[in-house]
């Protein structure tokens, strides 16, 4: 089976999932996965538990926020850059309003009554 290379950045406490490649506060590693692997496959490879995964980017597009898990099924491609932040990261609404995001998370926002105009989605009252 042919493989592909993914550039992975792990931030804060997630750096430890890079093992010896951890720089303490972050890690940058190259992950080789079978072609057509998904984000979930990458997380499985890293042994990164879902409750620790925070704001996530694929090629600079917002793909997931804590409580808005819209990226698991996304198929990755050779050369993709994936950035995964930790559960204590934040990206307030006014600072991501109009930023680039995946079609999957856009659709997730659209289906919500609040249309995604909130800061956090995990433990906030609606």
């Amino acid at each position: 089976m042919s493989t592909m290379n993914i550039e992975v950045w792990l931030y804060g406490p997630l750096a430890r999932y890079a093992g010896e490649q951890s720089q303490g506060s972050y890690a940058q590693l190259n992950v080789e996965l079978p072609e057509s692997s998904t984000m979930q496959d990458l997380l499985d490879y890293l042994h990164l538990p879902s409750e620790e995964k925070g704001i996530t980017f694929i090629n600079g597009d917002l793909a997931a926020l804590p409580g808005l898990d819209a990226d698991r099924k996304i198929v990755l491609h050779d050369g993709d850059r994936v950035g995964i932040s930790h559960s204590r990261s934040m990206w307030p609404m006014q600072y991501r309003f109009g930023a680039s995001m995946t079609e999957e998370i856009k659709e997730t926002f659209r289906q919500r009554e609040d249309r995604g105009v909130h800061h956090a989605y995990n433990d906030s009252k609606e």
Partner: protein
Amino acid sequence: MGKMLRLNMTDRSATLQDLPDAYKYLGGRGLTSTLVYDEVDPQCHALGPNNKLVFAPGIVTGTPAPTSARISVGAKSPLTGGIKEANAGTAFSPAQAAMGLKAIVVEGQPADKGKWWMAYVSWDLNKKQPTVEFMPADEYAGRDLYEVFPELFKRFGKVSIAGIGTAGEFLYSNSGVVFEDMEGRPARYAGRGGLGAVMGSKGLKFIIMDRKGAPGVAFADKAVFEQGRKKLTAALMEHAITKPKGALNSYGTAVLINILNEAGGLPTRNFSSGRFEGAAKIAGEAVFEGNKERLGKELYNHACSPGCIIQCSNTWYRPDGTEHVSCQEYESIWSLGANCGIDSLDVTGELIKLCNAYGVDTIEMGCTLGVAMEGGLLAFGDGKRAIELMHEVGKGTPIGRILGNGTDMAARALGVTRVPTVKGQSMPAYEPRAVKGIGITYATSTMGADHTSGYTIAPEILGVSGKVDQFDKDKADLARNFLEATAYIDSTGHCLFIAFAILDIASGFEGSVEECNGVLGTQWTMNDVGRIGKEILAREVAFNRAAGISKAHDRMPEFMKYEKLPPHNVTWDIPDETLDAVFP
């Protein structure tokens, strides 16, 4: 009844007057902007005798309302030529509020230049009112504020300080008004827009606020206040961003560095890219881990001012475990780091400390250095030379004076056309080509490019939800709502960061309104918030229009329309009509 204190620097006289009825429901930015609108000729020279500098605590400042010790400082800005309000968290604000001083207005101008004064404001126990003594302050001029503040505390005891550094003495357009933090450091700035120069132009080096014996803030209805305080406190304690050991308390505002960098929205090397290869080394997570390594233990952040429960201010330590600087904020690390191609927290820490020592705004300074690097004065990434230039700014050498007057000034001096400013004020740390919404705020804010002008709270209450949303092509309505909500929060005395919790938790928002009712005796509901914000903005826009700032100034710098920003390779493509629709 609330009072206003006028400090006339022409003859060094002080006048105490009752707060006019028209001002009785105003506080913070609402009061500074209204006073500037009412009393300052929009066409006056910002550094001449007819400008006025106003200090106003917020509506609930000085009460036990959580995270509410902000002081608003307002005037006509020498940087933008328009109205300005900048605010800071500091014990100075509750001290002023405790004396019943809803506003201090500094006016006039002394005839003799080069002499410095301070105003010592204390409580007269016999007359039961504030009293003022003017004293010479020449011995403190021309010096590092980290030396001067301890001397002032030694001389006056437990007081609060508002003041200027050498940047304000030199009348730099990039000079802030400094206040003390909880440890007495000269580290809390009403930084933006050159308000330090306005203070300097009046020969006023410090206001020393001695609250001993002052009665504190009175309540119209303590029960209503308490009800509100509890709701807001609960929201702040619960929300992921604001709760203890949450995002801000653990990693500070710099937790945003890695996020914006991944998003391709971290302005790098004078706004030539949206991604910095060294970003992870200067992020909030790196501050946390760096301190842990240097101190041998985990260090969470502290409060900048009394009564804050968010506590987002960090302290950076040297390799030997001694304190280097507080605080390495997101904006400061970005401007003096990524925007200058610098990837060392020790270098950004030193540059931030020098900004505090001399009295300049870190955002404006980092953008100025970025432009200077592009103009060939020094190389991108050259932290050593950047530190040397900061000393030139502080000492007032010819090149220091060019850099101390802001990004536009430096760009003209050095022939640079990639100039990241709106209305003369430098952009903060969100690339508008990559994050379009914040660009609308930069363009249309009454303050010039300002990331704190457009926070949002509970959109369903502001009537936004269901009408427009973040994916509509026309974003003007949402942007206007952000601007209005922010003008309200800036008037309460609360830190803008309460917005993180009250956007998501409506009872917290309701609590913030009830707190105001408890102090003022008003019957506001959440529906009044938009109106209050709208009224403040209307005065600010009217002042700016009369000062010659038109809709044509509500624009992004031209280079952003034709230079593609990596990694998304995007340009600024929001139509001008959208910007014009924000303040129709």
